[in-house]
């Protein structure tokens, strides 16, 4: 099982570090990271393995939101993207 973490907002130092630490705390294994910074605007998509997650996905979402209060963060199960974008 995989989940997708998206982080969007103004760029600053340590965003990726905080997200990675959060994943580590919840035992989510990072599989893939794509990120870009255009005109100071940070966008990151991270795919994580959640089979051994030690809490609900929503808990991870809350933790990341607390660590990065100025960023827009979504943690969502990968099924929703597969359903919407694959026939």
């Amino acid at each position, binding site marked *: 099982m995989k989940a*997708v973490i*998206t982080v*969007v907002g103004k760029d600053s130092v340590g965003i990726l570090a905080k997200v990675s630490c959060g994943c580590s705390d919840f035992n989510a294994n990072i599989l893939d990271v*794509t990120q870009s910074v255009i005109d100071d605007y940070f*966008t990151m*998509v991270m*795919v994580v393995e959640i089979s051994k997650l030690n809490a*609900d*996905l*929503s808990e991870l*979402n809350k933790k990341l939101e607390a660590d990065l209060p100025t960023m*827009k963060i*979504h*943690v*969502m*199960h*990968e*099924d*929703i*993207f*597969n*359903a*919407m*974008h694959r026939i």
Partner: protein
Amino acid sequence: MLNMTDIMETVTMIQDEALDIRTITMGISLIDCADGDIDRSCDKVYDKITRYAERLVETGEKIEKKYGIPIVNKRIAVTPIALLAGASGGDPIKYAVTLDRAARAVGVDLIGGYSALVQKGFAPGDTELIQSIPRALAETDVVCSSVNVGSTKAGINMDAVRTLGHVVRECAELTKDDQCVGATKLVVFCNAPEDNPFMAGAFHGPGEPDCVINVGVSGPGVVRAALANMDDTADMGEIANEIKKTAFKITRMGQLVGTEASRMLGAPFGIIDLSLAPTPAVGDSVAHILEEIGLEQCGAAGTTAALAMLNDAVKKGGLMAANNCGGLSGAFIPVTEDAGMIDSARSGCLKIEKLEAMTAVCSVGLDMIVIPGDTPAEVISGMIADEAAIGMVNYKTTAVRVIPAIGVPEGEELEFGGLFGTGPVMKVNTASPAKMIARGGRIPSPMQALKN
């Protein structure tokens, strides 16, 4: 493999364009609760609803958290209560109070099915239930009611139409101190679907299984945003195609959520209602889609054509994404629940006559329209008859949910709050249809009914 563009598209739909699952509705059959004694019958109803729907809200919340998609409402639809009232006798209000209590016990937002199906005539329980609707809606909070007064197969029961004109008025009168809210919870249908997950018209039809999960999706904001990204020179065919693609994505999400909910609750997945259901929130309006297509304001000439195209494209896109479609499936045009419609009604661009034309090409009818408080019952009956005729002849569902604004002068507004929204009092043609309404009887079913 997932790509970044697709992922960000989904996230934007949820974050900025108000994409949501409008409702997961559990349909529960109460046929086995019928008893000759109304109190025993009510006890069985309460037990069955609270047993079957015990985990409905919790399950909805779990899915919300897993997929990060808002599920706005969790609801219950039950067997038309008139069937139980017919078996048990007694005051049907007892059932309304029981439904209200059961709905609160399991924490759902609304419960529908305080209903009667009288398209061809009245069976035991029907008249008593219909007469009790105003009191039932005034004395409960989350109970919704509907009456089916016509169908393509049966014609239109004009005795029921006459009665319902009075019932609608009384619903508003009994709740005049609370924004006439009673009338927002009553829908008068022609060709009512038996598996509709949307309120206030949801009920669990006699042909349905014991328990079923139906899902209603929504996404006017997503469709509008998709059209906003298109070139102004795109032709109507291209616009229809873009709407189809968007509807497909929205519906796939509904299919995923419905499948998951049905698995978790151990109940079969009935249908997805392929709908564009607006809310009063900014960016969640069907009227704004029509304006994005190129109308100065909803209600302008061209509105009916744009809506017909939108309604058709939503169905075509959604069909392939869903295993089973049903319910109302189409674009909704409830005036008070749609920010763009509210503006058009306020400015006078959108009139009831135009709305009536629009109902011929979209999924419901004259929905959530505030009318003057002194509108005679016969005029309301006339409006119901007209809508029922459109539904009957076109083999589609139509409905009337109008709210007489008792004691509110013209120019003022009723404010229901939440999803029900707010709306100005709209002008009604009050030339009297009283003589025709007093005739009663049944309008025979049209040629379209004879398909066998």
